[in-house]
């Protein structure tokens, strides 16, 4: 980052620079990968040592040491095996590919591709939610309100989606998506306004906004509530004219057009952050608050703008999930996605490309964990634990470097938010 400190001759300086670039690249890739790996290893130990069979085997460790180790290994293998086959299913794809090449139908192949497609489907809201947190990080704001903002987004888009029958899809669908975008933006802008004009710290206000929308949605969705579906505590189904189309007709394959919307939005966020003046201001605000103030940037407006846009992105996360996959909203819709997004924004170093990659990884993990829960009876919350560990390891890379004996790269930085309660 402080390339200006390189003050040697031209050739030497470019040499240093390229070396540095490669070391930055390693640290940008190696530490996150090792962080995820280490977190998964700890997750594996947790799975094994909360398994009664394993614990019994270990009690008899001195009688049968191999038995204890085998039981441990088996416990982990069953769990993570289910995770892998449920998220990627590479073995099945390989087999189906063989069938197809030997003249068999494509049916087996399209079935085998379902887990992979489902992983991509799960990743879509993560991309939006991760971008939401990443945008906040870039501007020095910590938005932990994604959970609530995506609920607002989902509720408003679904409302538009079922409440206006008779519209053609090219009017209705964009309308529903816009509703989700605007709903999230409003819910995100409130903490932004509070921070800008009163100094209320966004970490607490966004959490409170989460609880407020959870109470409001409980009222909206309860049987007889304004948005309930008859005797069910869920919203009515979104009309076909407001559904984001699913692209394959295979049973269980819910891959949908929202994936491409996510990629386009990620590119737009990249453009905003790195190619526009506004983005430069946002990054300056995040990198050095004082410098931003003295350079004459209107910090208050920028705070509100960043929080509104971050909320809007989170709103889109809920929107795509509701319009493309679920097609209705019930209580517990967000299911911890807000916390996932923090982990993956940190993992992706708050860069749109990194966020997309991290979202693909976490979508895969989440999707596999669903299978792991049904096959191996491992609660899906194991993924939440893994995420917490990933955050710790990304935030304290020293731990990872110490574990794997890595060298300390120069000029590394971690985001800082806790400058005080006031502004």
């Amino acid at each position: 980052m402080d390339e200006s400190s390189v003050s040697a001759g031209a050739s030497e300086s470019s040499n240093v620079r390229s070396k540095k670039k490669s070391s930055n690249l390693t640290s940008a890739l190696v530490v996150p990968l090792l962080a995820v790996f280490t977190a998964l290893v700890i997750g594996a130990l947790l799975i094994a040592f909360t398994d009664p069979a394993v614990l019994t085997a270990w009690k008899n460790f001195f009688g049968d040491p191999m038995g204890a180790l085998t039981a441990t290994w088996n416990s982990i293998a069953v769990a993570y095996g289910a995770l892998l086959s449920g998220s990627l299913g590479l073995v099945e794809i390989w087999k189906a590919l063989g069938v197809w090449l030997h003249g068999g139908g494509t049916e087996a192949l399209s079935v085998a591709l379902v887990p992979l497609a489902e992983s991509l489907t799960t990743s879509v809201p993560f991309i939006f939610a991760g971008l939401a947190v990443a945008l906040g990080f870039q501007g020095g704001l910590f938005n932990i309100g994604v959970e609530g903002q995506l609920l607002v987004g989902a509720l408003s888009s679904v409302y538009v989606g079922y409440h206006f029958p008779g519209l053609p899809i090219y009017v209705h669908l964009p309308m529903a998506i816009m509703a989700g975008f605007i709903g999230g933006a409003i819910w995100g802008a409130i903490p932004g306004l509070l921070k800008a004009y009163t100094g209320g710290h966004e970490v607490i206000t966004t959490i409170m906004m989460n609880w407020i929308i959870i109470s409001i949605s409980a009222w909206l969705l309860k049987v007889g509530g304004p948005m309930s579906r008859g005797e069910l505590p869920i919203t009515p189904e979104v009309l076909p004219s407001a559904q984001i189309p699913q692209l394959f007709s295979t049973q269980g394959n819910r891959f949908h057009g929202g994936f491409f919307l996510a990629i386009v939005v990620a590119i737009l966020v990249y453009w905003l952050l790195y190619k526009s003046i506004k983005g430069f201001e946002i990054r300056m605000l995040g990198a050095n608050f004082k410098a931003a103030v003295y350079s004459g940037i209107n910090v208050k407006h920028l705070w509100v703008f960043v929080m509104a846009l971050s909320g809007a992105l989170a709103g889109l996360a809920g929107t795509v999930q509701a319009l493309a996959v679920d097609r209705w909203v019930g209580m517990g819709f967000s299911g911890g996605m807000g916390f996932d997004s923090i982990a993956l924004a940190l993992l992706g170093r708050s860069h749109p490309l990194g966020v997309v990659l991290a979202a693909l990884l976490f979508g895969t993990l989440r999707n596999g964990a669903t299978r792991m829960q049904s096959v191996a009876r491992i609660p899906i919350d194991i993924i939440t634990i893994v995420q917490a560990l990933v955050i710790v390891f990304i935030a304290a890379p020293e731990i990872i470097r110490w574990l794997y004996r890595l060298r300390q790269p120069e000029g590394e930085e971690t985001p800082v938010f806790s400058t005080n309660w006031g502004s």
Partner: protein
Amino acid sequence: MTATTANTQSDSMMALKKERRRAIAFGVFFLLVAAAILVLFVINTDNEMMSTLKLNPTTRNKPIHVPDLVLPTQLTLIVLFIITGAMGAYQLGKGFKNAATALGVVFLIFIAAFLVWATRNKAINLLGILSFTVAAATPIAFAGLSGVICERSGVINIAIEGQMLVGAMIAVLVASVTDSQWLGLGVAIISGAVLGALLAVLAIRFLVDQIIAGVAINIFGLGITSFISQRYMQPNPELNTGGVFPKIAIPLLSKIPVIGPIFFNQNAIVYILFATVIVMHFMLWYTRWGLRTQAVGEHPRAADTLGINVFRIRYINVIIGGMIASIGGAYLTIGSVGRFDENITAGKGFIGLAAMIFGQWTPLGTYGASLIFGFSDALQAKLQILGKVQVPIPSEWLLILPYLITIIVLAGVVGRTVPPAADGQPYVKE
């Protein structure tokens, strides 16, 4: 920021202007609350109505009998309206010296007005509501005290929510297995110490941003408690029946009319809270440890120069903070409902932090602020008894009240009160 801005004259002018604007905002807010009392409550009453607030407990522990409070509904509401309006006018004119306390009083008046209005032509047991207030305030107060002890030494503890969750689960788990709530509480405190130590190591040793470290611990707490709850407690319900600390009526004190049943007929954890508030207040201002803690929180470099071990103080305080938070968590299970549910804390850790800010980083103030949150909790829990005709507001809307007050407190009080100067800043020895 706060330390550097006062340097130049224009900056201090700006600070003054900002201060003035905040004072006006407060006054306007007070007037709005007054208007709300008028529009929401007063115009829905007539001068025939009476609100009866019973002041004698229905339990066996009978203090000296006092007559019930029978209030003319409309007149009472008008008086409350006038008081709030007058406070708004005073705030706009001269300005309260301690605006945070004034805000607290306005909150209380509003909740009281709500109560009087809801009981029009009916009777409700005020003692029941107030003793529930003390109970509901307990976890929030523990969370706030945890914040006080950490932040006084300069470390922001956002991880309170996670520490409470783990404490809540461990407490009920251990109490179920051993049939002893005291053991449950003890092991929960140990778990809080461990999570406090984790936060301390991340924040002090690895210089991780304190808010990120705290959020990571919160997510970890949510994950691990949900994981264990699903893996062990749901298949084995006998692991989730820890029982509840019994209520103990303190002799003599519990016989005082009104005060007695409210404060002195609670369970052991509530009494532990009273003790913690008093001890912490005394310790912070009258002992070596307390003064050192404050020095470390205000100016760690100076404290270090004087030979105070900054890191040691911060480690100790953050670990004690984790322990206090976990007692608050344990209260949620073995202190009130006796069972653990996923995410049982429901944001109480963060509400506690708001109580801390409201209480201006003092133990007594934090407890007072917690009581306001507890009052709004109690109101929402008890008003449903009166039925839909009396309170034509969905209970989900009343649930929002504590979160809304938290936001208003953060918006209104932060910036008017002064946190420890080095709050949230890691200390690096030169």
